[in-house]
């Protein structure tokens, strides 16, 4: 485990010494803010409309979680598809290209420690990325006159969902990065795979019965929704964790297999 931490520390050292992490942070926040502002605008219009109609019943139903954050978390989940490939592309591919993987193979480090170290670093970067968007609920809390304010419990669950989604994406990205020497190829393939896990859900509308069940279950972003609503569904937890496990296992095999090629 000590070796895994040492590798994670080295990865983070490189992430923060190069522009890639900062660029991705900025990108994530810029696009996230755009969606946040649009949702905030829609919320404002809705509340003005309900006030004009003098409809206290509707006003009671309007809350931040449903009107803003549930949709925002869905949007952030989709933006992760665009951000994660660029964060995971270098993890193993760069070591292969620069031949630094020989250093790891010739020192007393096991392939498992290499994989854990790299994944741990990826998760830290993910947490940093997501933490930047805490600004949105914080801003809403700051300006709201609503005595109930922001439901922090639901926000926390939403972030848990986003983290799990991101962790699953990172595991897939790590695996794909371990298959190639080229960072560009790794990023492109990861992007296509992640995009597929999202758009496969669109076909759910056109199918029915068992096919629909399967397609809906495969779609990654749809598993985020229960978390965004402020609930935890075991089915979604199993989905995310099994993708993480699969990705890490496959990476472990790929790192081990690289020496035999």
């Amino acid at each position, binding site marked *: 485990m*000590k*070796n895994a931490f*040492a*590798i994670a*520390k*080295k990865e983070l*050292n*490189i992430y923060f*010494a*190069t522009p890639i992490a900062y660029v991705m942070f900025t990108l994530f926040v810029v696009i996230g803010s755009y969606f946040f502002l649009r949702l905030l605008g829609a919320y404002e219009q809705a509340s003005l409309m309900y006030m004009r109609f003098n409809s206290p019943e509707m006003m009671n139903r309007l809350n931040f979680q449903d009107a803003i954050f549930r949709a925002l978390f869905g949007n952030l989940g989709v933006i992760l598809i665009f951000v994660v490939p660029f964060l995971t592309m270098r993890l193993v591919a760069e070591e292969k290209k*620069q*031949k*630094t*993987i*020989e*250093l*790891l*193979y*010739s*020192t*007393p*480090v*096991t392939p498992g420690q290499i994989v854990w170290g790299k994944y741990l670093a990826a998760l830290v970067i993910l947490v940093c990325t997501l933490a930047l968007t805490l600004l949105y609920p914080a801003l809403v809390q700051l300006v709201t006159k609503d005595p109930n304010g922001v439901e922090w419990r639901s926000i926390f669950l939403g972030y848990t969902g986003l983290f799990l989604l991101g962790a699953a994406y990172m595991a897939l990205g790590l695996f794909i990065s371990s298959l190639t020497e080229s960072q560009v190829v790794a990023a492109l393939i990861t992007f296509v795979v992640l995009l597929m896990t999202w758009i496969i859900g669109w076909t759910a509308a056109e199918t029915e019965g068992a096919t629909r069940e399967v397609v809906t279950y495969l779609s990654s972003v749809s598993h985020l929704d229960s978390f965004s609503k402020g609930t935890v569904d075991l089915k979604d937890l199993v989905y995310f964790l099994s993708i993480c496990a699969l990705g890490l296992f496959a990476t472990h095999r790929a790192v081990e297999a690289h*020496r*035999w090629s």
Partner: protein
Amino acid sequence: MIEVSHLSKSYRDLKAVDDVSFQVQSGEILGFLGPNGAGKTTTMRILTGVLPPTSGTVKVSGFDVFEQPLEVKKRIGYLPENPPVYTDMTVRSYLRFVASIKGVARKAREGEVDRVAQKTNCTQFIQRVIGNLSKGQRQRVGLAQALLGDPEVLILDEPTVGLDPAQIIEVRQLIKSLAGKHTIVLSTHILPEVTAICQKALIISQGKVVAYDTLDNLQRAHAGAATADGQTGPVPSLEEIFLKLTSA
């Protein structure tokens, strides 16, 4: 200290290493010679546990590289052909990282990094980012990395490549000073280097061992025919022996 027996490695149809056997005693320096593509690097990769062999065994300090790779890797310092440096890190943070994965205790790490940096003359650029260093400086960082943790065995793949003449002499002296305490396998195509540093030479060509002996014995064996008045013939240089053996 190092026992290699009947080592072979094939890449599909290509036999990169073919039935190579040799031993290196503790404290010895073995010069590993051969033309480009002879299988030097492949052999060294197998010795360090980077590559698995197709057949044959390698034992380092009594541990089989294939059966107990971690025990072997703890005892080996390896400088590959291209120094395995992370170009985005500073020399110090890089050496710290390598020290930690080699299992140097946290408290001793800083001292160990300073020790190897001093030995390899890296101290003046230790705060710089490796990507901005010259080829020779990177080579020295690679050498420093191999020395971290004071391993019993050093496997050095062309350690003087890219250095200027003064640095070459320095590195040779450094390697010589390490002998006795460390067991060293050193590959090179620079033949005077072997004459200057090593006691024994192993020459391979197309994956096969063509000569394996002490330098003196090699020269004696390949000396010219005795002249009429009983004098031994001219003593050949290692260069001549090398060309004779590898041209076949």
